[in-house]
């Protein structure tokens, strides 16, 4: 089955291939590396240069790919973005794009070891360079510490050591396995004709779709809060706090948990922003994020190193207030409004529409926008208190300035 989002709203047609299987830590390195190796050479395009020239000649079509983890699934997303063929006045553009994608994934009778080694080293450099972004690095470290021995704590791009250990022989074997066993789903969106859909089915006869429980139920008992402090030559302290929140997508409390997070630190009207940033000027950014596939919530912030203790205290107080005092109807209404606005706005983004469609199909539920809004409207302040009862502080991770 091919998912179709037919709309004349956008100037592009997106053809997205999603390859999924249950995530295994020892396959992360391969799955992250694969999209780059596939670009180096195909049966038809003899090198990276020819491959990229072809994309340029398709009116600057862009081919993007990334590998991520959604719940317990490892998904390789490959997306070709084409100018709407009617705007480019080029009727064959869609078909050319489709064939190009097929060649990219399947046109590999052979691989070249030199190309493989080059791409491997480039990826290692990229993985290592991620440490330059201290905000992101500090978050990765929080997950590693908090979810040690859990799938969630593993670095999805694979570590330097895992990549180094991956051999050419293993790669070729894993590619064969990937072709045979990953399930391929296709999403088409934009001004797509029935002919386009039929053509896609002919070019990719192996596309299918199956709903499954992909939520990550792995968790641990939390008895004490772990605090980790590391230092680096930076000028601002990164303060991250992880909480267990055992409420997942589809749970009756799920929408209340989303609103709990929104009111705490999801928006500019939220308590962390108003108190930590605006009232005490302790930071420039402070936000909370709720991951409903895993059942955790985390707060991340960059704070003035000299006033770190105050920042910790104010954040703790705000979290405690959310968990013990009933939120006002007015405050809750603001969070609902912001959330509903986001839902509507995401209908204006081609990428967001695709993601929503994909996740809904995986869950086997396809509520309409109106139904989703109605669910949000029904949440009460007491529902948020119930969510607060389940929140458990797990780990504090600090990337501190050198003192």
């Amino acid at each position, binding site marked *: 089955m091919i998912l179709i989002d037919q*709309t004349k*709203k*956008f*100037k*592009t047609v997106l053809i997205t291939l999603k390859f999924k299987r249950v995530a295994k830590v020892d396959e992360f390195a391969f799955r992250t590396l694969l999209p780059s190796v596939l670009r180096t050479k195909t049966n038809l395009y003899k*090198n*990276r*240069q*020819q491959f*990229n*020239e072809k*994309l*340029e*000649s398709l*009116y*600057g*079509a*862009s081919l993007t790919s990334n590998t991520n983890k959604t719940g317990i699934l490892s998904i390789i997303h490959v997306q070709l973005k084409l*100018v*709407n063929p009617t*705007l*480019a006045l080029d009727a064959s553009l869609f078909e050319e794009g489709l064939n190009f994608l097929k060649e990219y994934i399947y046109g590999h009778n052979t691989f070249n070891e030199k190309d493989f080694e*080059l791409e491997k*080293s*480039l990826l290692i*450099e*990229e993985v*290592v*360079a991620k440490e*330059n972004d*201290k905000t992101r690095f500090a978050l990765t470290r929080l997950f590693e510490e908090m979810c040690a021995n859990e799938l969630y704590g593993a670095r999805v791009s694979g570590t330097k050591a895992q990549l180094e250990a991956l051999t050419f022989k293993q790669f070729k074997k894993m590619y064969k396995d990937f072709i045979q066993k990953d399930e391929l789903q296709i999403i088409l969106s934009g001004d797509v004709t029935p002919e386009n859909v039929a053509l896609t089915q002919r070019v990719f006869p192996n596309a299918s779709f199956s709903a499954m429980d992909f939520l990550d139920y792995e968790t641990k008992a939390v008895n004490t809060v772990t605090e*980790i*402090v*590391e*230092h*680096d*030559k*930076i*000028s*601002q302290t990164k303060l991250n706090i992880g909480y267990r929140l055992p409420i997942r997508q589809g749970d009756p409390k799920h929408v209340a948990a989303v609103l709990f997070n929104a009111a705490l630190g999801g*928006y*500019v*009207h939220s308590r962390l922003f*108003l108190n930590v*940033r605006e009232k005490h*000027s302790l*930071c*420039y*950014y402070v936000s909370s994020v709720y991951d409903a596939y895993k059942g955790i919530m985390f707060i991340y912030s*960059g*704070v*003035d190193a000299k006033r770190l203790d105050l920042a910790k205290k104010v954040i703790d107080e705000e979290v405690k207030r959310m968990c013990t005092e009933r939120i006002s109807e007015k405050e809750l209404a*603001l969070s609902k409004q*912001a959330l509903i*606005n*986001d839902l*509507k*706005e995401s209908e*204006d983004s*081609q990428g967001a529409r695709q993601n929503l469609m994909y996740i809904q199909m995986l869950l086997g539920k396809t509520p309409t926008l109106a139904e989703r809004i109605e669910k949000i409207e029904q949440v009460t302040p007491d529902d948020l208190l119930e969510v607060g009862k389940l929140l458990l502080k797990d780990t504090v991770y600090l990337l501190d300035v050198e003192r």
Partner: protein
Amino acid sequence: MEKVYYAHLNETVYQHTLANGLQVYMIPKNDFHKVFATFTTHYGSFDQSFISPKTGKKVNQPEGIAHFLEHKMFSMPDKTDAFETLSKFGVNANAYTNFDRTSYLFSGTKNIESALTYLLDFVQTPYFTVKSVKKEQGIIAEELRMYADYPNQRLFYGLLQNLYQKHPIHVEIGGTVESIHKITAKKLYDAYETFYHPSNMEVVLVGNFDPEAMVQLIEDNQSKKGYSKQDPIQRFMPKEPKAIRTSHAEIEMPVVMPKLGLGVKLTPSSGKEALKKDIALAILMDMYFSNSTKNYQQLLQSRLINESFEYTSIEEENAFTMAFFGDTVDPTLLKSRLTQMILALKRQKHDPVVFERHKKSTLGSFVMSLNSLESISMGFTNYLANGVSMFEVPEIIESITLKDIQAIAKDIQPKRISSFVVMPAKAQKASV
């Protein structure tokens, strides 16, 4: 109200100039849920020196004041915060400051009339006190410290500091922790009164709305405010010499691999001509440095670059730069290879087939950028600074010839090339 339809892109632009000089541009997109609204003043980090229209005297201001003013505009006299009020309408608000402009914006799917009225009102209500300025210095100092930890930001400004001697492009938009402490409420009022006059501003609306109703709303709102006419603002920009400041500089940061920035100072133009040159430069760089080129493959195969390699053109008032950035194991060798490649462009006989392919690709990328209301809005405002309506850009791309490409390549002078390197500093890590 003027209406222009661009058939090839299926886009319509409504334009109207109000009595007080405010320019209004509207691009209706009725199949979208959202409206994206911006209220922009032509005032950015470049504008540190100007004649006050009130006193007729020259004023010099601290670095970072336009950005500081942007932050302070959200404080209202009744002690409320405009950001918060806008979020109460259920819209997402934001603001940003560039080299040459400051924009206040929101996007939303309901209460658009009230939110737009409020946007106009809060941006036209200055309120600065000694206490609130002091408080904001704390927040902005944290913002600047956060940026100070971004190696790519250090690389970008480091390179511009090497290339430009006097032009304010080398000054960070937010200023420095020292310079923002020189900002006072009085200085903010001086800047506000000069640059936030409607004749120096524009409103751009993109999305689902009725243009007639919106222009009426804006007219009614503005006519109540009694703005008197203001003459064009006199700004002072230091005269930038053709020569660069230095050909090389280095700093240390906790990065895992050295980072190289390499730039060429080119001859700037203005208006539509500058935009045309900017696109021609982008095509020239694509022809010789994109991932389908020999140069790119050579650098990659010899392991001097990786996926972080990128190039860009920087086109601002009186400044025009070609720049390359990337992580590299050997900044010295990469610098020398890249320099050879850049200088070779001068004598290169350009392949018309490659040129046409990149022109087509540039056109395609432009059309794809019209996908989101945000990028239409930002792009529209950006091109206006060059006096061009965004939907005329495809014609400009079409008009570019190999001669334009050659002219840019000929402008590359060995003496105007500079490099900036961020070297890894050993960080002391300790777990407690």
